[in-house]
């Protein structure tokens, strides 16, 4: 197995626009939803990149583009130096062995009419070169064991398992082809609190065991902090801040990141009256018609004229330790009470 730290995934200037059309017969494009609009990041082997943002920020579309379930409008997704966004046919199929996903909803992500053995064994049916046919049942049972389920339950159906157990089945399916990257799209948000911890611990253990790299997409900032080495904050299709977990959580520089963090409730009532809370006004603008310049300016308390005319680039700003996309970036800890 390759060593930790080697670059495995390079995403460059990724753009995904969904055209908005009018008319039934003569379709005419009247605009586009700019779901992902110029996103770049790298991921190393064994590393976890957390992606946080609120609904509509484009994080789920990003996951689909990374998984080649949607073709990007432009940009590249290089896995081991090859662009999965441009791959087709047999090459794409081969590349899929390297990137797999764990989905949010344990109830709809497993086919209710397939046995657990068929679900976890499906990757081997599709990629017959990975495991000889006679080996399939044994491999499936090993996978069940790895994710902490009883290998004898191979002939059961998804509805016979609890939500947490189903999520383990989904994880086992993702592991079957021994991918190097796993995209986790809100993998614990549908689970009860006491079950969340079990699944998070499992994901962490598997990462160490198999040297997996994770893209961990979630709206729960606490979970992301717990599991991630680096974190990217998205707003309206763009990454507004990216850095390691200490950078983002203890020294956030972008006003949106600060507002987002200050809104996360801390499970400790001590000092709750003193805690700083930045309450944003209104809702995010529509991704079909984002504001000019900085996309956050319409809700930003620091906004000035330049924000409307000049788009701030994602770069390291004076006085900060990591990249942020704000003309007036300034480190400010909002999470800890002094």
């Amino acid at each position, binding site marked *: 197995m390759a060593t930790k730290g080697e670059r495995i995934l390079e995403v460059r200037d990724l753009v995904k626009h969904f055209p908005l059309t009018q008319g039934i017969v003569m379709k005419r494009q009247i605009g586009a939803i700019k779901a992902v609009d110029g996103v770049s990041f790298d991921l190393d082997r064994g590393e976890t990149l957390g992606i946080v943002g*609120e*609904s509509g920020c484009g994080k789920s579309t990003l996951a689909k583009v990374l998984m080649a379930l949607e073709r990007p409008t432009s940009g590249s997704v290089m896995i081991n130096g090859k662009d999965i966004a441009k791959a087709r046919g047999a090459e794409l199929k081969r590349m899929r062995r390297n990137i797999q996903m764990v989905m949010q909803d344990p109830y709809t992500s497993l086919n209710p009419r397939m046995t657990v053995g068929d679900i976890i064994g499906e990757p081997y049916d599709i990629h017959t070169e990975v495991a000889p046919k006679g080996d399939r049942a044994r491999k499936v049972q090993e996978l069940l064991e790895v994710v902490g389920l009883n290998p004898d339950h191979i002939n059961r159906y998804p509805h016979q398992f*609890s939500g*947490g157990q189903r999520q383990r089945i989904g994880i086992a399916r993702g592991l079957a082809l021994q991918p190097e990257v796993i995209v986790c799209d809100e993998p614990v948000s549908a689970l*009860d*609190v*006491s*079950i*969340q*911890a*079990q699944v*998070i*611990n499992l994901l*962490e253990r598997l990462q160490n065991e198999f040297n997996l790299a994770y893209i961990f997409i979630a*709206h729960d*900032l*606490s*979970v992301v*902090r*717990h*599991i991630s080495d680096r974190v990217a904050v998205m707003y309206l299709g763009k990454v507004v801040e990216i850095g390691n*977990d*200490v950078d983002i*959580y203890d020294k956030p520089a972008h006003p949106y990141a600060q*507002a*987002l*963090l*200050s*809104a*996360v*409730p*801390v*499970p*400790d*009532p*001590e000092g*709750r009256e003193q805690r700083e*809370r930045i*309450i*944003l006004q*209104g*809702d995010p603008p529509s991704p079909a018609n984002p504001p000019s310049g900085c996309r956050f300016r319409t809700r930003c308390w620091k906004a000035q004229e330049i924000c409307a005319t000049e788009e701030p680039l994602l770069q390291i700003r004076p006085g900060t330790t990591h990249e942020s996309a704000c003309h007036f970036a300034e480190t400010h800890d909002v*999470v*800890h009470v002094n």
Partner: protein
Amino acid sequence: MSKTSLDELPAEGGRGNGPLLDVDNLHVEFATRAGVVRAVNGVSYSLNPGETVAVLGESGSGKSVTAQAIMGILDVPPARIPQGEVRFHGTDLLKLSEEARTQVRGQRIAMIFQDALSALNPVFTVGWQISEMFRVHRGMSKRDGMKKAVELMDKVRIPAAKQRVNDYPHQFSGGMRQRIMIAMAIALDPEVLIADEPTTALDVTVQAQIMELLAELQRESNMGMILITHDLGVVADVADKIAVMYAGRIVENASVHDIYKAPAHPYTKGLLESIPRVDLKGHELYAIKGLPPNLLDMPTGCAFHPRCPYRQDDCVTDAPPLYEIGGTRNSACHYWREVLDGDQG
């Protein structure tokens, strides 16, 4: 059963002695094909004016069923309330006639739900739905009702309320829809607001907006709030008292500060240790082992014993009562002293 009339309730604004709302030994059962499910099993808590009581629990713990029993919106059958009282200003709501309950519901005790989209009627404008409260309960004219609706939408800070009063629910974002629900709930100045997972479907920044709005409305009107949630963060932010539910029972009952400082029940303790925190980078999370029990096949003794690190032999045989601890809090654990001290089993 004697039917108490609504007249025995103090008039609006009048405050009786004792707590505003007192849930006492409430039981709720559901008759299902597989057997009787005891969803709520002797739950008691009380609420004072201006106070926020959080009912904390995971899915299936009975927290929402309790709220529905208080509101009187359970479907009977299959639900049944074999015993218990819900006293509002000292009057047992469960003994009121349906007519009298309708008077209390919505006017004196109001409720907001998790899913605002399905709680609003998609074919009526939001203004119409808000003003309906005034037309039905206050006999206002359409025009006055609409005027009130705009006022309320302003109060819950929906921008451009005047222009948006004739919009339909789907034209609003999730956060705005939740505000409309809140507007309907507070329309008639209720004394109790039951919020059932009000922010679970919302993003954190919107959650912060909604929780702030609720806190402000509560301060203004001194209403009591029952907040039903699974989110330990939200609870720590807003609650005064907490009732932790597990498998249909309250397992711990205390002030918010006591619980977070030193939980006295292993389940509460496990929950608190199992959540990651945004202000700390922990190492490995503690995970409560196993699964919540099947309500049709409850463990003997203490319902939590199969998952409990403090379990002793008597936990398997004897269900623990709700022990009183220092006169201020309760825990349904034989070994609450050990849990408080933190000596693991």
